[in-house]
């Protein structure tokens, strides 16, 4: 029961943030349409099957299957980039903090020595 109520609280908070975001988006886009900054949503009608055919041909033209080694290389590189960004932040915060802690410890020991 306790866990269910906690899950509901988290989902409620999630829903609240999501609702605010969607409401903000709807209001902003309605405002932009009424001010003539952007066009309103268009409903395109086409023959059934025509659209599919177009999609299929464009897919064949643009999609080429890259090799597995190329995919792995790219995945390692881009994941490495993400890890690197996080590592830089970790070092930028943890290193000065531990340095300050060590300095504090040393000055405390000096004071005790006196």
């Amino acid at each position, binding site marked *: 029961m306790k866990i269910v109520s*906690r899950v509901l609280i988290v989902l409620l908070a*999630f829903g609240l943030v999501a609702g605010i*975001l969607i409401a903000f*988006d709807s209001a902003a886009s309605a405002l932009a349409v009424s001010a003539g900054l952007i066009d309103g949503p268009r409903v395109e009608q086409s023959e059934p099957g025509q659209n599919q055919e177009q999609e299929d041909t464009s897919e064949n033209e643009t999609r080429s299957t890259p090799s597995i080694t190329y*995919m792995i290389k790219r995945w390692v590189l881009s*994941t490495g980039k*993400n890890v690197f960004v996080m590592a830089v*932040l970790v070092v*930028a915060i943890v290193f000065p903090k531990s340095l300050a802690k060590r300095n504090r410890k040393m000055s405390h020991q000096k004071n005790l020595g006196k």
Partner: protein
Amino acid sequence: MSSEVEKGAVSQTKSKLWVDILIFVGFLVTMEPGLSRLTIHEWLSLSMIMGMLVHLLINWDWIIEITRRFLGRLGGQTRINYILNWLLFIDGTLLMVSGLMISEVAMPALGLKFQIGDGWSKLHDLSANTVLILLGLHTALHWNWIVSTVMRYIINPISRVIFRSKQTDGVL
């Protein structure tokens, strides 16, 4: 009685560690939709809601405690940590909602397709980059816990096993 409490704390710390590792790995995979393929990207991102839910439930007592004490006396780092966690939650929600809006696989499979503009896609990219930075800061603020827990529950047991097997090899 105290050993039971101790055992409970140990198992909670262990499960916390494994949930966090799973979330981290899942995050790294989902951050590259072009490579993990859109289907994996979308379904894995949706399943990460469960991971985040478990993470929040495990840390529930801390959240409640700091929420109560937030306006009173509280350490600077704890306060920053709390604000950062809220930012991470809000940004994670933005990431999830914008992802659902631009979904091409998961939402249509569930029978939902939204008429959306270009803005959601841009918001998705922006919130993903912000989550990366916030997650870096979150990791930095919990670095001591991460190092000590990984040492205690992963590195030390492995090195103990290796040391023991070396010893038995020496005896034989």
